[in-house]
């Protein structure tokens, strides 16, 4: 039931959008990809992944369709919508500004 409190508020949305921007995939694959690319640093429990995905879907940023996977089982595949792409750009921009600002602060040499 753990909430992604260790993630900066709102970044989970951005990460999911980014992952889905690469290719449409199902929930399990998203969870795997998240662990893979972040190198287990970002602990997102499966319990909070699905509510997050459903929220993005309800916002209209991602859309879902049922497809048969390569293993022959029906699975729900998520993909990015036009709105989602725009949202991702916006959030990525924000993130870029925020992280560069923070790193500038952190890099200030102690006098």
């Amino acid at each position, binding site marked *: *039931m*753990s909430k992604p409190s260790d993630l900066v508020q709102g970044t989970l949305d951005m990460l999911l959008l980014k992952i889905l921007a690469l290719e449409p995939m*199902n*929930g*399990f694959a998203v*969870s795997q990809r998240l662990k893979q690319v972040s190198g287990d640093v970002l602990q997102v*429990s*499966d*319990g*909070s992944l*699905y*509510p997050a995905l*459903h*929220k993005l*879907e*309800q*916002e*209209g940023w991602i*859309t879902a369709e*049922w497809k048969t996977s390569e293993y022959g*089982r*029906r*699975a*729900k595949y998520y993909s990015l*919508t036009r*709105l989602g792409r725009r949202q991702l750009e916006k959030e990525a921009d924000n993130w870029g500004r925020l992280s560069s600002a923070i790193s500038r602060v952190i890099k200030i040499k102690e006098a």
Partner: protein
Amino acid sequence: MRPEHWLFTIPLRLRSLFRRAQADQELDDELRDHLEQATEQYVAKGMAPGEAQRRARLDLGGIEQTKEQCRDTRRVNRIQDLMQDLHFGLRLLRKNPGFTSIAVLTLALAIGANTAIFSAVYAVLIKPLPFKNADRLVFILKKNVPRGWSRNPISPAEILAWRNQTEAFDDFAAYTESSCVLTGAGEAEEDPCETITSNLFPLLGVAPYRGRSFTSEEDKAGVQPAVILSYGLWQRRFGGEENVIGRSITLNGVSHTVVGVMPANLSHLYASPYGSVPGMWVSGMGLAAEHTSNDYFGIARLKPGATLAQASMQMDTVSMGLEKVYPDLHGWRAQVMSFRTNSSADMRPALLVLIAATTFVLLIACANIANLLLARGAGRANEFAIRNALGASQGRLVWQLLTESGVVCFAGGIIGVLLASGLCKGLAALAPDTLLRAAPDLAAGTANVRVLGFAMLTLIATTFLFGLAPALQSAKPKVIETLKEAGRSSLQSPQSRRFRSALVVSEIALALVLLVGAGLMVRTLAELIHVNLGFNPKNILTLRAPLSGDRYKEPRSRAQTWEHVVARVEALPGVEAASVSRGLPITGWSGQYFTTADNPIPPAGQVPVANYVIVGPDYFRTMQIPLRRGRGFNDHDTQSAERVVIVNEKLARTSWPGQDPLGKQLRVGDDAPWLSVIGVAGDVLSQGADGRIHSEIYVPVGQYPWLQGPQHLVVRTSASVKPESLIRAVVEQIHRIDKDVPVTDVETMEQITLESIAQQRMVMALLVSFAGLALGLSTLGIYSVLSYSTAQRTREIGVRMALGAERGRVLRLVVGGGVGLAGLGLAIGIAAALLLTRLMTDLLYGVPATDPLTFVGVSAVLGASSILACYVPARRATKIDPMVALRYE
């Protein structure tokens, strides 16, 4: 949000709402798919299949909780939950018909009563008056503070002076009430009518429906008089014909030109609440500055920005000048009031008491249902604990409980509003004429939008009032405690017990206040019914038959006609006595100045007044008014004989204290002949059963037929004959003599007496019903609390009894708890009643607002019923078999 966004989201929302099962199925599939893949992955890593499955589940957190969170993102949950709760709530209510019917019925009664009373309150006190800028309209009467008189009609001298010498008014109109006998073209009829100044309708901002208002030329006396018909009279008498305008009709023997018809919905709230609704309006006021007869009512429009106080001050200054010129006006000052104050007159205290009473009933009903809900909530602790464990948040549970109480409330509300329509009709049947005139919709029982809005608001407030506290109480997460007790009925928390006790205490306190109010009204009515009216109202039939027109121009012809009528009526079987009069006891009192020979020129402001009653020879015998001294009138008291008068005891006592009144002389009016007192009659209540005793002057018809003719016929029947049964025969006798005489106001004296106390009777009937309801509800409340807590203490009581407690002890234990609550409720109730009943002093008669008998009596009734309510569960407790109790559960 951008429209483009809605393109995506609206179909999603609709799908979530209407294809919910599919959406949920897909959610299940998706998560199962995830679990399978995760399990496979763990197995691939070398885990045992069982362990792998467990890990996968753990990773997902609580599956049901995750699902609920996913559903939460759909944004339509509130609606879905509501549907689900409604469904569930209805099912629960169907399963508990006892609870449901008690809750719905009590609420329906309370809301119905509230809505009905509010209809009356709205009509009388809130509804905007249907006149142009009604807030600036004022009604003008006069008062004489030193002599304690108020609400007196005004005179032409005052109307003209106030109109011309003050700055506060835009316009000033006046009217006077009279009766118009319409003859020619069909049966003669008498209608109440008003003679008005031509500016009255323009001032009120009401336009005629047909034709025109009067012109200022028509205000003058001596020009061809004009008449405006009411819509009702136009329809009834003239068949709604358009060509009635311009036609001549005969009123009181004088030809009038019809110039207009007023609209059907014309409100009479511009007039005195005691006046009759007119059938027509007549022109030709002819106000003359030197007239000081008090027959008129003033209606004025304040200038924008001018206040009642300013107007009143300016008018007082004018009055001070007037009284120097006209001694009759000595001490009189304008009594200016808003239209609302005038039209709601003496109904306000009664209505406020009634709306307070219905609010109390509603509060008691709410407390009662809250109590029942709490008891049920405690019983459902297991259900809530399980729901909570399965992911329902506390807020969600509160919503569910509120929805359930909302269902009860809604059902109660619907039935209540339906009931209200019937209750309105009942109220109209009980209501005094003044209320019916101010609230004409009441009898129809149609609720208007505002009244329905009020009912809706009451409903919503009620739902929260009785639903929220129990919901918050019951929905508190007590998962561990409850589940640990596993199936055992959970003990209610001390907090919840305190809350329920507080509810019962307040129910009893509120019920006591209502009972005291009802008790005081019952005592008032008892006083009023047994008050000595000064005459015997039983077996008397009265009617009004004004003799007018050419045939009765001669006073002698009027007197002779009455003589014939009385002789014929007295000859009817079942009639004991009959007589004529102008003026009847109870129906009103109009003062005339008089002077006595011993004090011919009293100082201005101290001229005595008395009610001037013209009576036939047998009047005192017919009414059974006792003669204390001297003789009654007889056939020898004619114009040629000595002028005689009979006074009442009050007048004799005040005019000639300590002296023999017989042979004393008095006269009414400065130029009138002196009258010798030949008898002293007993005092009668001329202003109604709750009125005061005033001085009365009785003069014989035989000597004064030319002043004002008598109008009333009074007929006493023998004890075995109902006066109503003679109506047809009596009217027939009158019409045999003259078929054109209109007969109106046919009533028995008992009806007249009852009408004079109609308001008190209405308030009493309603308060007694409300108090009865409150008594029942609060008794039920204390009973339900006690039976519930006794049921919960079954084991404890069983243990006590097993350890040797006697039945008497157990009885005391249980009853004691209830009696403590009842006692506290009674104490608070008595304190509140002492404060609140003072507000109803205006409605009481012959009983103080703090009447100890009433307080003790109703406390005893409420206390006794509470003890009874405690005794039943207590007896049940003593019947507990210790063995069964300990094995229980």
